[in-house]
């Protein structure tokens, strides 16, 4: 992973943690990654192992792929309705709604993956 990719990954992890309003202490306690390492990872100063990334993604309720590659814009009826209904809102409110829908989509995806895994 290049330095640039490390910084991008770290900043995505930081931004997600802050979106959910989780402290570094909480994340450290529940992933086993030392607090200082979380800080270094978020600033792209330390590499994150695949196990660490899997644990962070699991805690944040997002798939690992969310942190590794640019996400495509969600295309579905709900999102189209959301764009339409949010027409007169401020840009920041629209962004919050889209971000929330994204969070719900990944929460739902994780549920269906867990469901599929359970069903065999």
């Amino acid at each position, binding site marked *: 992973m290049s330095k640039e990719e490390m910084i991008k990954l770290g900043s995505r992890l930081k931004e997600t943690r802050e*979106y*959910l*309003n*989780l402290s570094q202490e*909480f994340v450290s306690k*529940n992933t086993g990654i030392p607090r200082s390492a979380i800080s270094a990872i978020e600033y792209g100063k330390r590499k994150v192992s695949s196990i660490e990334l899997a644990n962070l993604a*699991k*805690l*944040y*309720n997002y798939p690992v792929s969310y942190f590794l590659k640019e996400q495509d814009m*969600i295309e*579905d*009826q*709900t*999102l189209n*309705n*959301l764009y339409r*209904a*949010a027409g007169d*809102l*401020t840009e*920041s*409110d629209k962004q*919050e*709604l889209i971000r*929330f*829908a994204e*969070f*719900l*989509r990944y*929460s*739902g*995806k*994780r*549920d*269906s993956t867990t469901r599929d895994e359970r069903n065999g």
Partner: protein
Amino acid sequence: MKETDKKDMWIAQLAAMEATKELEEAKVSWDREIDIFSIIENAGLPLLFRPLKHLSGAYIPANESSDLKAGILINSDHPRSRQRYTAAHEYAHHIQDQTMSLDRETEIVGRTQQRMLPEHERFAEVFASWFLMPPQLIGNIKKALGINFDYPKPEDIYQLSLVLGTSYRAIITQLVALKEISWTQANRLRKWQPKDLKERISLRRFTDTPWNDIWEINKHYNGRSIHPKVGDELRLCLEETPSTGYIWISSDWDPAIILVDQRFVESEGEKIGEKGRREFNIKPEYAGESSLSFSLQRPWLGKKSEVDSFHIQLIIESEYLGVNPKLLLVEA
């Protein structure tokens, strides 16, 4: 009766019935505020608090084709009572028809203005009122706190709103809907703003944020559980007669709560040392569960001389932002 009135009444009845059914299924206690946030989370709906400019909240329904889970977004900048009302309103959309809802204003708007709302919004408004302020709960708290609805005092209604975790305006509207108070009484109560009441209670200009409230706690609160917020003022008043040697003493003091000051106030017309009240001015400093315990005793004889006691459980709330971390741990 006009057709529109009949329809209005039918929507209100349906919403009230749905709210009652949901409360019974959630097995709520009828003596404390309804824990709407936990009820939503227990229903499997992610609940997220974020700063929003012109939205009170939003409900996004599930979409199986894209694995989108249903969830509720709440404005983290709003006062807690309003957040609770918005949450109940959005939950109604989930219960009712699971259609997307972006609510610019979710504060209760009163019966006349409710008619201007689309049917599903009217349903959500009535559902939210009945969910957070069901008659059984209002009746129990009114009785326990000794509030008289025949001559409702604004200070009493404000305290009722605090115990129920709703806004002052919302409880007035619900009391009218339940025919507990008349329109005239409601209009008289509405002349008061919570800020004015806080100033009247505290006898000072109230410059704190609208987030904070002033609780007037008396013997009626003994054994109860309340939800003050970090930074609220708790004015605990307990009757005392110093000439008997018995005074109210705190049996233990949680560091999460600060005792700002205490004083003895003589009752009007009483001689020095006769009956009066001891006032404790208390401020919760940190969020979490805590309690206050006081014992009426002769200090030189200690606990064995106790003739009365007072205990109250405090669930100290802080401002919510993001997601409830406990839910992520369940998911993980």
